[in-house]
């Protein structure tokens, strides 16, 4: 009996560890995918920013503004879609905490994009609304409300197209810029929306409520 118990124990441990390792490998490969996506978005972002700066230097003002706004919106669409893909991957990842770092990288990219949008809005007198959506990464109790809010916002984005930009930001990942914005606008819970850098709405907001402050 001893013999078979030892054999079973060894085999079970080997197979179990193998299962865990495959799990880690799958999680890691997803992280690598996210890293790759973020790197290429980083590159695209820098390219878009440079492009807009060159447009403003070499072409007439209204044309350059139009192009800069267009590439900003293109980037918004892309970053938003990639954000959903990253979220899908982070939901299934169980064994790798590196995803938090990638999430922070994504948040920084969103912040840069938002900052550029604010600049463009001012310098080009652009007529679009910005909606910054604060969500919690860790708070399980907030997940249901956040999912509802996400769906409402993506529907709104689909409906309004280039009239709004959507910037989702993780609330609790200790990103110093986010912390600064939180304290500046007194944002203490999720889901919260910051519309046009002025209005803060806390709790789930339906389309009608948002459209009171954002134009579509």
């Amino acid at each position, binding site marked *: 009996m001893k013999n078979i118990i030892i054999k079973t124990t060894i085999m079970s441990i080997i197979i179990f560890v193998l299962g865990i390792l*495959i799990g880690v490998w*799958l999680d890691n490969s997803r992280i690598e995918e996210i890293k790759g996506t973020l790197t290429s978005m980083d590159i695209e972002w820098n390219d878009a920013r440079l492009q807009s700066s060159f447009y403003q230097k070499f072409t007439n003002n209204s044309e350059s503004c139009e192009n800069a706004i267009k590439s900003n919106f293109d980037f918004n669409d892309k970053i938003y879609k990639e954000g959903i893909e990253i979220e*899908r991957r982070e939901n299934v990842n169980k*064994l790798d905490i590196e995803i938090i770092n990638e999430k922070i990288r994504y948040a920084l990219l969103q912040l840069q994009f938002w900052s550029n949008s604010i600049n463009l809005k001012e310098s080009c007198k652009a007529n679009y609304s910005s909606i910054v959506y604060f969500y919690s990464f860790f708070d399980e109790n907030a997940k*249901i409300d956040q*999912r509802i809010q996400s*769906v409402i916002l993506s529907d709104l984005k689909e409906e309004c197209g280039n009239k709004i930009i959507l910037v989702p930001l993780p609330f609790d990942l200790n990103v110093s810029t986010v912390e600064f914005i939180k304290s500046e606008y007194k944002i203490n819970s999720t889901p919260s929306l910051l519309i046009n850098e002025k209005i803060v709405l806390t709790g789930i907001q*339906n389309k009608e409520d948002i459209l009171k402050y954002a134009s579509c």
Partner: protein
Amino acid sequence: MLYAVDIAYLVFAFITLYFTILFFLLFLENKKSIYKIPKLLRYPSMSIIVPAHNEEKNIGKTIKNLKKLIYPKNKLEIIVVNDGSTDKTGEIARNFKGVKVFDKVNQGKKAYAINFGVSKAKNEIIACIDADSFPKPDSILKAVPFFNDPIVGAVTTSVFVKEPKNLIQKLQYLEYAMIVWTRKLLEFVDGIYVTPGALSLYRKDVLQKIGGFDENNLTEDIEIAWRMIHQGYIIKMSTPSKVYTTVPSSFKKWWAQRIRWNVGGLQTSAKYVDTLFRSRFKSLGMFIVPFFILSYFVSLLGFGVFVYVLGTAIFNFSSLFFKSFLYKSDPLSLINYSYFADFLILPNVFTIFGLGIFILSLLWIFISLKTTGIKIKGLSGVYKILVYLTLYITAFPIILINSIFKFLKSKKYSW
């Protein structure tokens, strides 16, 4: 991120994997011995005891089957214990020539009736057969050679379901075939933990030495097996000895039977828990008791995880639906956002273990059916296997929880 429920799932997966590997290894190492029986050296005298309580529908058929047993007639004694029947059980049994019928007052438990039968029996080997079980003619002949070894205290047989008609019986038909396979495999680690009432053979002197069947236990067939091992005897299983038994035909009866089995199992576990990991009790302390305790644990753990995951999913989904109406969001968008689909498209460690356990369970069923010669045909067979693996197995932990409450409340039961 890993949460407590995730860790519980991984613990459940490991224990399930451990037992599955144990059985597969036992199977691979002993494949050739499953149907092997020792050489018959002599015909020991045999008393067959049939305890019967209101069994007028079956008793005649059972005795007819016993009359067909291939065994020297001068070595065979058939005893029917008419256990306070209020129907024609005794009358029918008395119509058979050479059958000894003893009447007794029903005392609520089967153990009383068997002990009474044993006290009347004159022969060396005692074969206990339920009044609704039908052994094949060669079943005893193929079981007796295992008694060549003096340390063998009891021999069990392969119990199959007789003529399953409805779904609940067909599911038990599958289950019994798997039990036959696993019980034989347990023999190779001296881990047979039950000598089923459908047909089991005992040495009379051993039965008497260890004090007979426990009259306070609901599952005297489990308790007697544990006590035999506790006293240093071993139990063998004769796979070629086949007996067909009647099983509950309704969900209610099945449920009541399983509660009784579980409460009896808990009574026995509580009685022998002090042997846990004590090597002087050999396989009882080192295998059977830990196996039982772990199976209770894994059953409750698995069910806990299942209820938590399902409960959370239902709660989340209904909250999402409710709130989506409240906030005038499109509920269909929420359906599209499916976590379940992602777990298949983007597999993680849980998908691996979940699929692994499911595939191993299927393999387990197919090997046990193949080994026991049970044939499952076509789509209806696949359907039964799927129902077995999902609904039927899910009921076990619920029965266990119910039984634990009943056991703790020390509710009185009768057979």
